[in-house]
């Protein structure tokens, strides 16, 4: 199997692409024995991308989905605590510092004066790995700022 995978990856580098990650989804094997693979790679020009895709097809690789995407993976997270007091701007900036991660939406519900507030944040990341990075960074920041982080059960 690994040998086969290496062969599939060949066109990417031979056409000047740069592989970032390969996720082999063995657990999602189809009834016909095909194994879905998610490959993320950078490639400079559109034509090169097309060549790579053509090469894949001629090798019998079925392309299920192509995403040329930024911020495609969205996750919702809540924060509870002294959110404004502990500088929400700084919290957001530090998440945005991560490459391929952006806080794309923020709703704030202020508590009464001196009381805690709640915020809902949407984090858009280019892929799941970056989402995980962003969430773990948010947890570290929140631990220091004594904020409660409420993540979605689906990513756990």
């Amino acid at each position, binding site marked *: 199997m690994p040998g086969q995978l290496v062969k599939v990856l060949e066109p990417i580098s031979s056409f000047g692409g740069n592989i970032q990650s390969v996720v082999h989804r063995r*657990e999602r094997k189809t009834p016909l024995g095909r194994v879905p693979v998610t490959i993320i790679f950078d490639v400079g020009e559109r034509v090169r991308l097309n060549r790579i895709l053509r090469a894949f097809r001629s090798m019998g690789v079925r392309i299920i989905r192509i995403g040329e995407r930024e911020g495609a993976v969205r996750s*919702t*997270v*809540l924060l*509870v*605590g002294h959110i404004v007091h502990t500088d929400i701007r700084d919290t957001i900036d530090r998440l945005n510092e991560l490459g391929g991660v952006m806080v794309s939406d923020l*709703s704030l*519900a*202020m*508590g009464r004066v001196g009381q*805690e*507030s*709640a*915020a*809902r944040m949407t984090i858009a990341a280019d892929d799941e790995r970056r989402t995980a990075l962003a969430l773990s960074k948010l947890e570290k920041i929140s631990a220091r700022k004594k904020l*409660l982080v*409420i*993540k*979605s*059960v*689906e990513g*756990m």
Partner: protein
Amino acid sequence: MAIVGFGNLGRGLARVLIEKSEFLRRTQGLIPRVVAVVDEHGAAVDEDGLDLRRLLRVAERKGTVAAHPKGKRGKSALEIIEGTEADVVFELTPTNIKTGEPGLTHIKKAMQAEKHVITSNKGPLVVAFKELDSLARRCGVEFRYSASVGGGVPVIGLAKGLLAGNEIRAIRGVLNGTTNYILTRMSKENAPFDVVLHEAQELGIAEKDPTLDIEGIDTACKITILANSLLGVNARLRDVRVAGIRNVRPEAIRLAREAGYVIKLVGVAKRDLLEVGPKLVPLGHPLAVGGTLNAVTFELDLAREITITGFGAGPQETSSSLLGDLIDIHRVLGG
């Protein structure tokens, strides 16, 4: 059998044994005979079988089974466990998550006396799961604890029974009825935590000291038990990362709802992660159960996802698990 601890569950079990005696005989060929019952004040013993109706009446009226004609004040659980001819001991005393006592000693002594053990008590399981599991094997006795997680919901039984062919990748669960009630009410009434907690205490849904529930520790105990019994890891309570629901504000619940989520206290057990905390659960997700309900989702290699839901506490509901364990032992032993 001997019943150690005759509070809510002990009495609930006794009631069910009375109501179901004909049913158990007919469907299972099982004729349970309770030869001893013990509480903190004393015990009632009759090798020919105690009259459970009378025992319940006495216990309700006098506050202890020792007031029964066959009763004796000051007779301890250990004397009962070691000195009676019971085949099965039900250990139903209060949970102590620090020492596991008195349940831990009761269970060990019962096993050493070659008696099968059925318990609902999380304390001994959290403190000494591996030790008890291997002691049971060494002593050649059956050890069952279905009622300790999920009350009436057969979480452990389902996983160990019909799902046994699967590898369990993750277990996620709403495992505490009290906190689920509080979060559900906060969401419906837009009311603050303290107000709803007070209401739950008046309804008897939350205890006078609700710390273990609302701090997430009760859920963490259940996650510890599930990790040990179903994932085969040697986990301790302190390995579970825990956050409770005290800081969940109505504003947070509203923000969650606007985005299509409810907030639930969720416990997660994976081989490399044990965690309890408030989580966003999408509306319509199988874990988005309301009121005092419990729900557990297994993530499995073959069946993918299975969720079961039901009542996580209450004497009648939980006696379903206690009785299930008894019948299971009866079958294993070829009765």
